[in-house]
């Protein structure tokens, strides 16, 4: 019989203990695989969502003066790393005649065949148009008109009228990233030849590879452009989605990191308990002549074997759990549920980590077990925590706190990217766990006094049992602290971020109908001022319209930074659609009436501008000084926006046209406006959407993202619960002898079960309180970290529902986790329980 044999015998004698240790690794590895796969599914879902909103990632090259330009003026940029394709775009309002129907549609000229072959345009049927008399139609439009491939339509353009054959029907989704409302797709040269323009384009859209750093490519492309051209991230298209997704990704990273930290913490705890419980046996081996090395080897070999077994089971369970979780996330994001894509390295890395962490987690208690005094180790009394350990723990807690706060400060000053907050958040949580033994005991004693007098004896014994083992207690509580903190911290952070975005959106777009510019969106073209005024007048003249606000959008530059200049009518009858930071609405309105501007907080952060600064703003090639009167919360184009009144923008930059019209109806008249507004939209090549549709669109993004985060948070809670159940079970197993003694001195079985449950609930309550503090701190950390992304601080609102739900869940999990093993423990024969080693 060698040490391996001894190990096997130990497992056979106490299979529950070995199983619990292996289960902890299975939970950790399963959590790692499932969380990672779910996070990946969320990221894929976010990407699909962004694509659905904004199409493929792009940047635009436009003329600085906002007019059309010669496509040949754009230098070669297709070789810039990250650039997938370069697509010149030419938009033309036109008229289609199909049978007796006449439709105003926007045509877009592109190299259709090239887009199809590059996979950037999908044809549901037919083939690309190649000849002068061929077009491709939006499949949705074609179906509505009853058109099929091979049918003919009459196409009215400025220069001529042509009978054109429909060669293909394009999938509406695949048009979205470049067509911007256009439903007729023709070859760019054909469309130009039918118009008055020759070789002039509205913009050149640069298509980027997936997952590329858009800002980096933007800078590289901008560097190559001549002075008359400018590169920009398409404004107003996907900025809101981008912002929500930026925050969501940060949240996703947090949830993943904290769930993984919790999972590995569970392993550490289980291994520590597994070794601590056998202190006497291990000491006896040393007394009989076993060396410290032999004992450490015994423990680490055991950890490796249990780790490998647990990791294998966990990997299978994680993969099995990943599929339904990913499908749930896809449902939440309303994207199609693809196959679960598991990174090929994920499973081997998770399994290897399972083994390594199990061994590492066992090594420390093994070292403790071999350094403990032999006489102390042989004692049946539980070992007192060495003072040195407590000192080390305190120093570690202080150091971890310093590192976490140092990281946050470094982020605040821009030395570290916002994503570093994920690391600092995890480090802070570890600091909380390290501090736990110091808070926990006094907390448990206080809570113990609240136990009703009829459970006085059980309560007192429960408190003493907890107090007797501060480190083990702290480790068990540590899992709960992480779980509760995860739930409370992220629950608050997610809700606050969403409320922030929705609050802004509610203020920004307060109207019944929204008309947006098709085609040349984001450039308030100088040459369309007259048409725009006509359109606004038509809208105002409609019966049932209470108010119309025009919004012009143009690309501008401040201190070399691209920004979006927004010109709004800001009618005094409507509330100010901006959220001022450290300023009153009245002050902001007055400043805007004086012709001053307000800057988005992100723009202020990026350019370093402050309230009261006079900045040079370049729009349409015109450089004009503008005073910044206040900062406002704004998510337009990532918050890098400068907002002025429209009359001031017209005077300062010549911004004439409205790219967006917000139409407010007289009460009860909104539905009746659809038809006349649709007519105006067709005439002026605008999109019409009701506020409800727009709100639904935003809600879809937000609820999808939030839903996916909750799914992963739920997974984290399940992991935490399993971990708590596991450690509490091990803790009860370890107390079997003590429980037997209590029964021997006359305690009833029910009393013993009650004591164990009470012990667990007291621990859960104390850990819940520490977790609440940690959770609120985590929420503050996340919000602090979001500041560089959002450009403004998020207010933390304590939500009693989230707090109570988490605390109740912690109590329920601990009570249930203790009740089952306690019932089993008291069913043992008294002698058997007393003889438990």
């Amino acid at each position, binding site marked *: *019989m*060698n*040490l391996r*044999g*001894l190990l096997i*015998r*130990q497992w*056979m*004698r*106490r299979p529950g203990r070995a199983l619990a240790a292996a289960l902890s690794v299975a939970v950790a590895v399963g959590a790692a695989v499932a969380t990672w796969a779910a996070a990946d599914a969320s990221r894929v879902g976010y990407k699909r969502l962004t694509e659905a909103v904004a199409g493929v990632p792009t940047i635009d090259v436009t003329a600085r003066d906002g007019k059309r330009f010669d496509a040949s003026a754009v230098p070669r940029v297709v070789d810039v790393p990250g650039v997938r394709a370069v697509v010149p775009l030419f938009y033309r309002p036109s008229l289609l005649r199909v049978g007796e129907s006449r439709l105003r549609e926007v045509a877009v000229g592109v190299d259709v065949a090239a887009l199809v072959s590059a996979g950037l345009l999908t044809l549901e049927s037919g083939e690309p148009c190649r000849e002068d008399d061929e077009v491709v139609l939006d499949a949705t439009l074609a179906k509505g008109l009853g058109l099929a491939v091979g049918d003919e339509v009459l196409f009215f353009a400025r220069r001529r009228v042509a009978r054109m054959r429909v060669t293909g029907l394009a999938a509406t989704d695949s048009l979205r990233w470049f067509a911007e409302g256009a439903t007729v797709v023709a070859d760019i040269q054909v469309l130009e030849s039918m118009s008055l323009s020759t070789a002039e384009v509205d913009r050149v859209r640069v298509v980027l590879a997936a997952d590329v750093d858009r800002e980096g490519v933007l800078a590289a492309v901008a560097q190559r452009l001549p002075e008359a051209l400018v590169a920009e991230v398409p404004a107003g298209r996907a900025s809101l989605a981008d912002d929500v997704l930026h925050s969501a990704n940060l949240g996703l990273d947090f949830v993943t990191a904290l769930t993984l930290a919790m999972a590995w913490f569970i392993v550490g705890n289980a291994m520590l308990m597994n070794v601590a419980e056998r202190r006497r*046996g291990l000491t*006896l*081996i*040393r*007394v*009989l*002549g*076993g*060396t*410290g*090395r*032999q004992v450490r080897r015994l423990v680490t070999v055991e950890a490796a074997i249990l780790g490998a077994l647990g990791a294998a089971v966990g990997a299978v369970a994680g993969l099995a759990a990943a599929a339904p979780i990913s499908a749930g996330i896809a449902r939440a994001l309303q994207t199609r549920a693809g196959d679960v894509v598991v990174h090929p390295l994920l499973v081997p890395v998770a399994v290897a980590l399972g083994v390594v962490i199990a061994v590492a987690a066992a090594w420390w208690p093994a070292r403790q077990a071999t350094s403990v*005094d*032999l*006489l102390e180790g*042989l004692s049946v009394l539980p070992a007192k925590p060495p003072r040195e350990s407590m000192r080390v723990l305190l120093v570690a807690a202080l150091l971890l706190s310093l590192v976490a706060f140092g990281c946050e400060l470094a982020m605040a000053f821009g030395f570290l990217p916002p994503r570093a907050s994920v690391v600092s958040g995890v480090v802070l949580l570890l600091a909380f766990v390290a501090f736990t033994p110091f808070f926990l005991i006094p907390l448990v004693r206080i809570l113990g006094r609240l136990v009703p007098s009829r459970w006085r004896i059980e309560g007192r014994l429960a408190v003493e049992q907890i107090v007797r083992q501060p480190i083990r207690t702290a480790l068990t509580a540590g899992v709960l602290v992480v779980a509760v903190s995860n739930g409370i911290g992220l629950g608050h952070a997610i809700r606050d971020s969403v409320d922030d975005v929705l609050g802004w959106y509610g203020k920004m777009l307060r109207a019944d109908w929204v008309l947006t510019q098709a085609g040349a969106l984001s450039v308030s073209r100088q040459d369309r001022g007259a048409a725009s005024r006509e359109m606004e007048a038509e809208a105002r003249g409609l019966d049932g319209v209470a108010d119309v606000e025009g919004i012009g959008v143009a690309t501008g530059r401040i201190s070399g930074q691209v920004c979006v200049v927004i010109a709004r009518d800001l009618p005094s009858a409507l509330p100010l659609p901006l959220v001022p930071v450290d300023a009153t609405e009245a002050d902001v309105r007055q400043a805007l009436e004086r012709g001053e501007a307000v800057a988005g907080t992100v723009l202020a952060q990026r350019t370093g501008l402050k309230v009261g600064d006079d900045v040079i703003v370049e729009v349409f090639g015109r450089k004009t000084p503008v005073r910044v009167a206040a900062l406002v919360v704004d998510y337009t184009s990532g918050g890098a926006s400068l907002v002025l009144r429209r009359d001031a923008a017209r005077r300062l930059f010549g911004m004439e046209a409205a790219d967006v019209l917000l139409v407010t109806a007289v009460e009860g008249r909104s539905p009746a406006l659809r038809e006349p507004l649709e007519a105006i939209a067709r005439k002026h090549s605008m999109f019409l959407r009701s506020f409800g549709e727009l709100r639904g669109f935003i809600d879809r993004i937000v609820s999808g993202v939030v839903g996916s985060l909750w799914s992963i948070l739920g997974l984290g809670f399940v992991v935490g619960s399993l971990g708590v159940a596991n450690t509490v079970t091990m803790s009860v197993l370890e107390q079997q002898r003590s429980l037997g003694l209590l029964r021997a001195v006359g305690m009833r079985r029910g009393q013993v079960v009650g004591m164990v449950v009470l012990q667990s609930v007291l621990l859960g309550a104390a850990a819940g309180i520490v977790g609440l503090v940690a959770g609120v701190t985590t929420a503050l950390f996340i919000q602090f970290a979001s500041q560089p992304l959002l450009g403004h601080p998020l207010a933390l609102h304590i939500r009693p529902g989230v707090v109570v739900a988490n605390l109740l869940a912690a109590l329920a999990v601990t009570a249930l986790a203790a009740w089952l093993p306690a019932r089993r423990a008291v069913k043992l024969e008294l002698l058997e329980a007393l*003889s438990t*080693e």
Partner: protein
Amino acid sequence: MHAPPPILRTERLEKTFSGGDAESAVAAVGGVDFQVGRGEFVAVTGASGSGKSTLLHMLGGITRPTAGRVLLEGVDLATLDDDALAAIRRRRIGFVFQRYNLLPELSLLENVSLPLALDGATPARCEAAARAALEAVGMAHRGSHRPDELSGGEQQRGAIARALVTDPAVVLADEPTGALDSANSARVVELLQRLVAERQQTVILVTHDPAVAAAAGRIVRMQDGLIHTDSAGTPRP
């Protein structure tokens, strides 16, 4: 008749348990000079707290002295590192405890062979030696049983077999009859006597039971951490 050559010797052996400050420090053993020859059966007696168990633990290298030396077969235990001390405990010292301290997950045979297994002996040698040791204590027929299937007396005899399995220089027994009834106590004492008589095994036994002590060839009585009387006439400090 010559006194047997000393197999174990102590010089000014002291042990003080520190309570964190000088005032709460307790001197358990206060300077003991003592030697034991091969084949001697020594009973160390004394009241509770007299230092007899602490002395035994220092003799066995379980705890290190605060001052003084323990020389086992001429080797100063204080000069050994933990691994070397473990090797001495494994090969040259046999321990018998009041609560038997058998590993519950192992059979009696496996428990007995454990010191040899720790020493890297082959399974065949482990088994053969363990069987022989069990034979010597009259427990060969119970080798396949687990400790919880044995009576207290049987467990203690098994523990004695484990102490003998490596053919140690000295067997140290700490209250080996403390948890046994009188019949089993008598059987254990008789067994130890037989080992000394038949195998020239050196045995040092700590007991507070005068009847057990009387079975030993030499009685050392301790008081307040010092040897008060020694029936062999070893001079008191």
